[in-house]
């Protein structure tokens, strides 16, 4: 397994909680691997499953979706819907051959800077262990 394999990770963070949590990790100077590229969305419910599938099609090694803890959503109900949507997408992607460890949904609140960095590090380590996406050649 390539020792210098650097997974490419796309992170969708909700503006009110997880993006603020990531900021908190910044202000607290808590380091974590730099593979993740963060995209800000107003709410975790804004993330269209098409975006996740498109990211994997373009070659992402992992996609992380982060939102507010259920009950804390700035829009009161957003994360309830995203929880249902991704609870369906996750097993479906796995069924299509994208391993479980490649798609994560995590609740990170605005004060959980530490937790955000842990989530990113564990996620990145898992992907490094898993190795790059297998390029399956088809006649």
């Amino acid at each position, binding site marked *: 397994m390539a020792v210098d394999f650097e997974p490419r990770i796309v992170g969708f963070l909700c503006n009110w909680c997880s993006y603020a949590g990531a900021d908190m990790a*910044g202000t607290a100077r808590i*380091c*974590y691997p730099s593979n993740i590229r963060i995209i800000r*969305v107003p709410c975790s419910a*804004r993330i269209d499953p098409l*975006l996740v599938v498109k990211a994997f099609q373009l070659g992402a090694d992992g996609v992380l979706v982060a939102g507010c803890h259920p009950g804390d959503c700035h*829009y009161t109900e957003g994360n309830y*819907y995203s929880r249902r949507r991704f609870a369906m997408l996750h097993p479906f992607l796995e069924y299509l051959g994208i391993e479980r460890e490649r798609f994560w949904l995590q609740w990170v609140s605005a004060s959980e800077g530490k937790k955000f960095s842990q989530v990113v590090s564990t996620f990145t380590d898992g992907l490094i262990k898993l190795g790059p996406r297998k390029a399956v050649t088809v006649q």
Partner: protein
Amino acid sequence: MARIGVFICHCGTNIAGTVDINGVVEAAKQMPMVVHAAENKYNCSEPGQALIRDAIVEHRLNRVVIAACSPRMHENTFRKTVAAAGLNPYLLEIANLREHCSWVHGDGKEAATIKAMELIRMAVAKVARHEQLFPKQVPLTKRALIIGGGISGIQAALDIANAGHKVVLVEREPTIGGRMAQLDKTFPTLDCSSCILTPKMVEVAQHPNITLLTSAEVKEVKGFVGNFEVSILQKTRKVDHTKCTGCGICWQKCPEKAPSEFDVGMGKRTSIYIPFPQAVPPKPVIDTSSCRYYKYLRFMEEKKEGKPPPQCRVCEKLCPVNAIDWEQKDEILTEKFGAIIVATGYKPFDPTIYSELGFGRHPDVITGLQLERMMSASGPASGEVTRPSTGEHPKDVVFLTCVGSRDEQRGRTYCSKVCCMYIAKHAIMLKEHDPEVQCYVFYMDVRTVSKDYEEFYKRAQESGTIYIRGKVSQIRQEDGKLIVRGEDTLLGEMVEIPADMVVLAIGMEHNPGAVELAQALKVSYDVNELFIEAHPKLRPVETMSDGVFVAGACVGPRDIPESVASGGAAAAKVAVLFSQDFLTTDPMVAVIDQMKCGGCLLCTKVCPFKAIDTQVLRDGRTVAVVNESLCKGCGLCVAACRFGAPNLRGFTQQQLLAEVTSLWQ
């Protein structure tokens, strides 16, 4: 064609310390549609902003990417900078090189620089697809609705009215005044409650800007901040208040007596009544459950055998202006408002569930409010405190604190804040009424939280009240005396006190109907069914639903000073809202392409703010349309829709997809 300018910030050494700024600037120059890239010591500083403004003019930029700190920090600052240079403030995107890159990847400078370049590439890809956005102006109805006529509601109504705006005050009871009207004296100054309250009540009645609707309830609330449409149920009083002059003949001559809710069971009132002498409006209502004429009507309706009860109708005969109107029906009024203040107050806790204390079984066990009514000069006993069982003056009075407060077993975990103080007040006043009275207080902690409260508590102790630290386990009736058995934890022994009267310091509880009102106003409520403020410390009188404010004890236990203060604060917020002629709405809201909408209306079902309505097109198709004033811009409908009809301005599908694909360009 987009002409994008990228401004990379050093942020002192915060970013420059880790990221190779020059390398990033060069990389930015190669990116598609970027015509200008520059670095800046401090983008957010005045010289930094000046540099950006000049560059916009000089290079005719129509899109700007600021690569600096978190957008949550300076998005608005840079929007103003860009606007100052004549560009639409929304043609801006911020790449977070500090919190998300330099500060967290200090250990890998090279990787951090590559990440910085890619973050900028994403921002450039997104900003290339930004369109100009313009906040909308929505007209504003400068009328305020205040629900609840207690002291907070009265204070808010007066403040708003004095600020020159129209106010409608809706009160469920026949009179305003709320709980405070039931009190005799108020701590810590011991000034008479009705003396300080009734003038304000009269002021409300006479204020030209205030319309008073008593015996009325809010049923349904539609619309949004600035344009609420509220339907109010005006319950029938069977008395025409436009004719009635409040002369009082009817309630003096009415033969039927019924227990007075206002006196909490300590006194009686007539069927046609005003709750208390200083009631505002001083006009009576008929209680149809106890009125003899209605008993006759019900008897006739059920066609029972036997002699029908008398018809009575004395009040109708005696009324000089025949204001009695049996045909009066409930009616629904629909009114338009710009802001709503909820001041529905609290309900005293009903201590019957404490079976061991014997409330309801032993007549001499009463609540603090009942004692208040006895002590009140205008009360049923006109100020004379007597034992309900024998009518004599009580010599030994035992007070119990925290009845229905700070108790997990009964689901009331919070402290009701006012009981310790009103017990001290009762102790002092009982001593003044009758020097031989000996008061005992069983307490867990005595909480004296505001100005002059501790001194007031000391005064109560000095007046001879014995404070026993411990809880009462049982109250038994033994030959005419109430044996109060409890533990004195400081002595470490059980004590039993024979008492003439026991007063339970009942706490505060949500008002029934609070949940239905909260749901109607789309305001959240907590496990104790108390309203939840937008932010407990920073926005105590606002709620998550714009244009709806809260004041007084409906949010949590509050004493009179706090209730008045929060009433005033809510009024100030309304005044601020009404100070502008128009409401500007946030332009980053959803918009639906009606050509692509398939009419399945899933978005109308999922929208948390009910901001999506339906519309029938000319060709008969039913499609969804966004009410831009209600939409909060969460984007839930965009991801839920299979047709891809809705799009969220500022976070469109095109922009997010561009950000994702830019990582593999």
